């Protein structure tokens, strides 16, 4: 049922503007150093991660004139600056490429909290980007938005893969962007979801997540397009699956049946056995219930005799949880690990609650990564799963 082999799309390029700074090198250095980048603000409040100042100032003022007055000096302008920087980093060509923008609530806080009422608001990020790009790059088609919570990026990637596989376009850039705002912080705090310390994914003592900022861009292109500049080593995106628990608006289904189904279907559709997966990059973010569900589902899917399942890690301990950008953050970090031939440690994890998985604790583990799985979950019980394979350009 529902078998679908998404075997002809590759991650042709990726670029990160994260709380580690601008560029893939900054992100890679931070991941392999294994130290958290979230911190507690001087004025108090829950620890969270924000862009370095240079990132948010680099392209400030790029919004179109009619919008500029509304967002100048706000979080919206900061996020727009980081987003434009990221698109420039990946070499986005507005005249030839399609742009899909993933963000959860993005600019709500900026809009609601700037004391001037709502001037634009959450709904404007794709259009702001379009306007900004039009100013500097000469237009292109308006961006499309994906706004379904923490799996917004997964939905956008899924759409990009389908567009490429259908032959509708040769490449699509997915931009996942999220900022941290007062609204966000207080909203998650109200849910009791924030940790008072740096997040501890999978750890027995975990008590919540850290919100953070991040903008990540990936170019999804048709496999076999080496002649168009896609390197032969580029990862093949061999399967993408999204499923819904249909259980609760914010909590995961405890049994994880739908997350399990998404993983199994992804493996089946790529004709991959669980034992062939070298590493799993799962966005366990330190949440009490979500991490437990994910660990138990991973045990079901991957645990086998001998306990030699895939290496398991998460980016949340270092980079925090950038909500709508999470799926793409994990994907980009998985690509970095594949390129490095090593899996970075799951920062914050000391004593796993669920045994039986090969967590990467403390130090990176060097290992050639032929196939990896990327997993994220989100509000509404949505689960996003990707499978990456080495050497996608051969198609």
């Amino acid at each position, binding site marked *: 049922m529902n078998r679908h082999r998404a075997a002809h799309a590759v991650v042709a390029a990726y670029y990160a503007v994260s709380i580690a700074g601008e560029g893939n090198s900054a992100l890679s250095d931070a991941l392999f150093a294994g130290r958290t980048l979230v911190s507690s603000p001087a004025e108090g409040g829950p620890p969270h991660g924000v862009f370095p100042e240079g990132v948010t100032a680099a392209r400030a003022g790029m919004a179109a004139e009619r919008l500029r007055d509304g967002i100048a000096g706000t979080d919206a302008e900061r996020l727009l600056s980081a987003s434009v920087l990221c698109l420039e980093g990946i070499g986005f060509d507005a005249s030839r490429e399609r742009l899909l923008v993933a963000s959860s609530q993005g600019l709500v806080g900026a809009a609601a909290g700037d004391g001037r009422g709502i001037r634009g608001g959450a709904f404007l990020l794709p259009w702001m980007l379009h306007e900004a790009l039009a100013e500097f790059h000469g237009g292109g088609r308006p961006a499309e938005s994906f706004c379904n919570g923490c799996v917004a990026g997964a939905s956008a990637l899924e759409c990009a893969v389908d567009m490429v596989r259908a032959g509708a376009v040769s490449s699509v850039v997915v931009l996942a962007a999220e900022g941290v705002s007062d609204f966000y912080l207080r909203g998650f705090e109200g849910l009791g979801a924030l940790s008072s310390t740096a997040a501890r994914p999978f750890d027995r003592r975990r008590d919540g997540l850290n919100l953070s900022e991040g903008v990540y861009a990936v170019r999804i292109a048709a496999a076999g397009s080496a002649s168009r500049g896609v390197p032969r080593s580029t990862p093949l995106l061999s399967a993408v699956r999204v*499923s819904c628990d249909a259980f609760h608006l914010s909590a995961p289904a405890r049994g994880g049946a739908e997350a399990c189904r998404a993983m199994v279907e992804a493996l089946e559709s790529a004709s991959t056995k669980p034992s062939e997966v070298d590493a799993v990059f799962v966005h366990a973010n330190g949440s009490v219930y979500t991490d437990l569900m994910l660990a138990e589902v991973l045990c079901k899917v991957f645990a086998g005799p001998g306990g030699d399942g895939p290496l398991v890690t998460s980016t949340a301990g270092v980079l925090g949880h950038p909500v709508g950008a999470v799926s793409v953050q994990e994907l980009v970090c998985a690509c970095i690990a594949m390129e490095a031939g090593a899996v970075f440690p799951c920062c914050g994890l000391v004593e796993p609650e669920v045994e039986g998985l090969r967590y990467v604790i403390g130090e990176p583990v060097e290992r050639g990564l032929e196939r990896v799985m990327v997993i994220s979950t989100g509000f509404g019980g949505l689960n996003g799963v990707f499978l990456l394979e080495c050497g996608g350009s051969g198609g």
Partner: protein
Amino acid sequence: MSFFSNAAEAEVERVEKGCVMLAGGILLGPWGVERLDGEGAGGAPRSCGGRVEDALLEYSPVGPSARRKRKKARKLPRSVRLAASCAVSLMRALSPAGAGDPGALRGLEESVGGPVDVVCATVLGIQERVEPFVPGVSAEPEPSSFVFSNHGAAAAFVQMELGLHGGCVQSAGEPDCGAFAFLRALRRLAAGRCRAVLCMGWDSPFREPGGCRADSSSGRELFAAAGEYFGMRGLDPSIASESACCMLLVGAEGVRASSCGFGWRISGWCDHGRMHPFEAGGRAAVGHGERGAPRPPVVHVVPADSLSPEECERWNAGSPLAGFLRVPTMRGLLSVCFFDYLFRALRELRDSAPAWNRAYVHWRACGAASSADAPAEAWGPSFVFER
């Protein structure tokens, strides 16, 4: 130059397997409720503006613990109740068991033989719960308010109520997000990701009573600001609709949900590049799937606010078209305006004479419809329907 010359087939998203427009469709707005498979023109005369009647937002939860949830349902945000009410009404319309068997209302996935996805569109839906939160003035957001401020919450709620385990794709923040959402539904079906897709648009630009700062921007002001920013004609706050919702059910080829009588095939679509729906887009859609000349009779469905009768006549001259069908639009419905247009077009096509074999349904981007001197290359998708 012939209307059909230079068919830009390369611009068409080719699909090996088409999709099927199922009869399931509900449109709920300030004017009342309409069913796609209803008799006659149906419904009261439509006009943008005003609020949906409270009675239409009363719905009976159908999922687990329905009785317990009935009381809670009244406390949900209006926009979420609107979506849920619309979804339950649609399931009732589709269910052979009718309203008497709530359990049967959750059987859609079994009925179509696989996962059902939800695509959802909203431009401003989120705002009704965000606006009351102004740091330093309002109280902190309550957990439920915060969750519902998420754009995807209404769709997730519908999935939860109806037990739909497919993916959910939420499009938000664009005046044309309804059209984007419908395109995504077709792509997902063509890619074999699911067996059917529930397409849903909802918008509620008016805040709920209470809890707002007196001097904060109201929904109407927000509406006007959005209209000004997007350059959209028809977003005059005086005609803003408080809420509207539309749901359409589209299936993979071969899917027939019980009691669905439409069964029209959607064999192609065209969504990329900047295109005038009656030039590049129109030709591309016409070119799709054709081997030689188009098979008449063909009817072109166009937004009435985008093409005058005189322009239709000019385009029609010398073509094998059965004619143009000009369908009114209500751009003020925001994310629902595309669905409303499609809904009307489908009903009119159903009742139209003479018979047509193929219909090219065009949409013109909201931004492009904002002024008489809109750029000719403005974006707008086209869809090919076949009987």
